């Protein structure tokens, strides 16, 4: 990994971290655990669009690790990790099929799978079937937030000039 790549990825990781902290400060719109805007997914999706899968995975994992250190909530680590990995995998599949033409759709799929991953971990930890009543709320919120994040990423993709790793 050359210095330029390291610096750019570190920059994006810092950005994702800040956005996830902002995200955790926003009041939840409905009293359902797991419903969040997912602002930091803008960065992950952007890195995935511009660079390689590996780079997006690095940004995602480092961001989740640091975010769980900063908030001192270690249980949230597993929720975020499962959600993040699920969403990254589905977004990679979508990008393979659609290229970078249907970013909002990719983002919606990512958000829905993020919520599904989190939900699966919550079911595993709590082992309570009553949690299932949260699922429709999580699906709808995934669609809404995914669309929002996708549109954000689309306009960012349009206006930010290409940043390459190649060294001059």
């Amino acid at each position: 990994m050359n210095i330029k790549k390291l610096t750019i990825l570190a920059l994006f990781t810092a950005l994702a971290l800040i956005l996830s902290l902002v995200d955790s400060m926003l009041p939840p719109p409905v009293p359902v655990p797991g419903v969040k805007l997912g602002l930091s997914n803008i960065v992950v999706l952007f890195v995935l669009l511009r660079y390689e899968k590996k780079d997006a995975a690095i940004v995602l994992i480092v961001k989740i690790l640091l975010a769980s250190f900063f908030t001192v909530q270690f249980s949230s680590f597993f929720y975020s990790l499962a959600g993040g990995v699920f969403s990254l995998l589905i977004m990679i599949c979508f990008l393979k099929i659609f290229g970078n033409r249907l970013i909002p759709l990719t983002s919606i799929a990512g958000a829905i799978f993020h919520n599904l991953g989190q939900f699966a971990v919550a079911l595993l930890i709590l082992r309570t079937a009553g949690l299932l009543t949260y699922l429709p709320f999580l699906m709808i919120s995934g669609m809404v937030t995914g669309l929002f994040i996708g549109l954000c990423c689309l306009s960012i993709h349009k206006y930010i000039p290409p940043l390459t790793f190649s060294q001059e």
Partner: protein
Amino acid sequence: MNSSLTKQQKHYALLFLVLLAVMAFFCTLAIILIQKRQSSATVASIYQNGSLIQTISLSSVTAPYQLKLDGPNGSVNIIEVRPGSIGIVEADCPDQICVNMGIRSHSLLPITCLPNRLIIVFSEATENTDTFDLMTY
């Protein structure tokens, strides 16, 4: 934007959109049903870490009292039990979602504190809560 898509990509996109629409429809339906159906539940079961730690028959509570629950990693939740209703009034988690859910008397939605692995489920008084391992709606 769509003009640059190949035929196959259009098919996939359409398929995904239809899938989304169907899912959105059923989820909205489920949410409406969940909000509407007020079961006459009077039993609240408190689970922590996936195991049942306490079952409270809410209708037989005469005076309000508070329960302090110590969770994993030194977390603390304070649960208030009132005649006919229950809720979490204090939690040391950052998001406070469980506190925001308020005091509830009967609801299909459980009160959950995910960081502290605490969940309060409402059920019918006649139901045997110990064998309660699947729920359909």
